[in-house]
């Protein structure tokens, strides 16, 4: 299996990273396929090995619901951290934009491994926290900008 640089494996040694990667099983998705939908129960973490994935939110546009991409994932990036964080529900929808292969990590496998290797578990969870933190900060800045735009419209 070709080794990939993965954001959740940052800071791990080669042997430890290989141990984590061995917990995942490869899955192929074709363009247009939905990997998971907003609100679905999150049972697995996904690592993109190839292809491209859009993470979208539904917006009502001219009376119809449309998926609008707010993030994208490329090889080496993870999606589906909701699998590791209660209440284990996906907060975005993931749709394949270019044929993709994932390594899929069931939550139970990861948690069981982390309990045996707490040092590895701590590092992986710290990486997951960094990814979540970035999402939070980007959305917070986007929200602030929208509040500013609304205020400017009201004062115009």
């Amino acid at each position, binding site marked *: 299996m070709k080794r990939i640089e993965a954001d959740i494996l940052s800071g791990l040694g080669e042997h430890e990273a290989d141990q984590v990667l061995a917990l995942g099983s490869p899955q192929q998705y074709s363009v247009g396929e939905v990997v998971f939908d907003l609100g679905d129960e999150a049972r697995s973490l996904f690592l993109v090995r190839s292809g491209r994935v859009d993470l979208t939110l539904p*917006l009502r*546009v*001219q009376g*119809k619901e*449309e998926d*609008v*991409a*707010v*993030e994208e994932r490329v090889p080496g990036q993870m999606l589906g951290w909701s699998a590791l964080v209660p209440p284990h529900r996906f907060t975005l929808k993931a749709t394949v934009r270019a044929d993709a292969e994932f390594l899929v990590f069931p939550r139970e496998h990861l948690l069981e491994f982390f309990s045996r290797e707490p040092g590895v578990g701590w590092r992986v969870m710290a990486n997951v926290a960094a990814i979540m933190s*970035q999402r939070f*900060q*980007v*959305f917070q*800045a*986007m929200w*602030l*900008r*929208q509040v*500013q735009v609304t205020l400017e419209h009201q004062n115009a």
Partner: protein
Amino acid sequence: MQPLLMSLSLCLLGFAACVLIFAAASRGNEDEEEAGTNSPPLTKGEQFFLDEGLSPGPEPEEPEEEFLYRLRSYVRSERAAAKSFLDGPNVESLHAANDSPLEP
């Protein structure tokens, strides 16, 4: 002399306007009376559609795909602006205008 002529002109204009308004109002009353004698009174539902027919109606919708494209570009640009703000937080980058405005 000039002020007198100006006053006279304004009076004539005002009189002409009054005549036009009175004529228009009288014609409206006649129409209403005719409508009252020749046609049954409008029910609430018919009145609703009559009003709707008189109104210009909603603005024509722009092509959906064009709007969606603009919306997606706007969100992408907002996200880039937010990331730029996080790279170097300052008030200017937080308030910088979006390069892909939502409104055309």
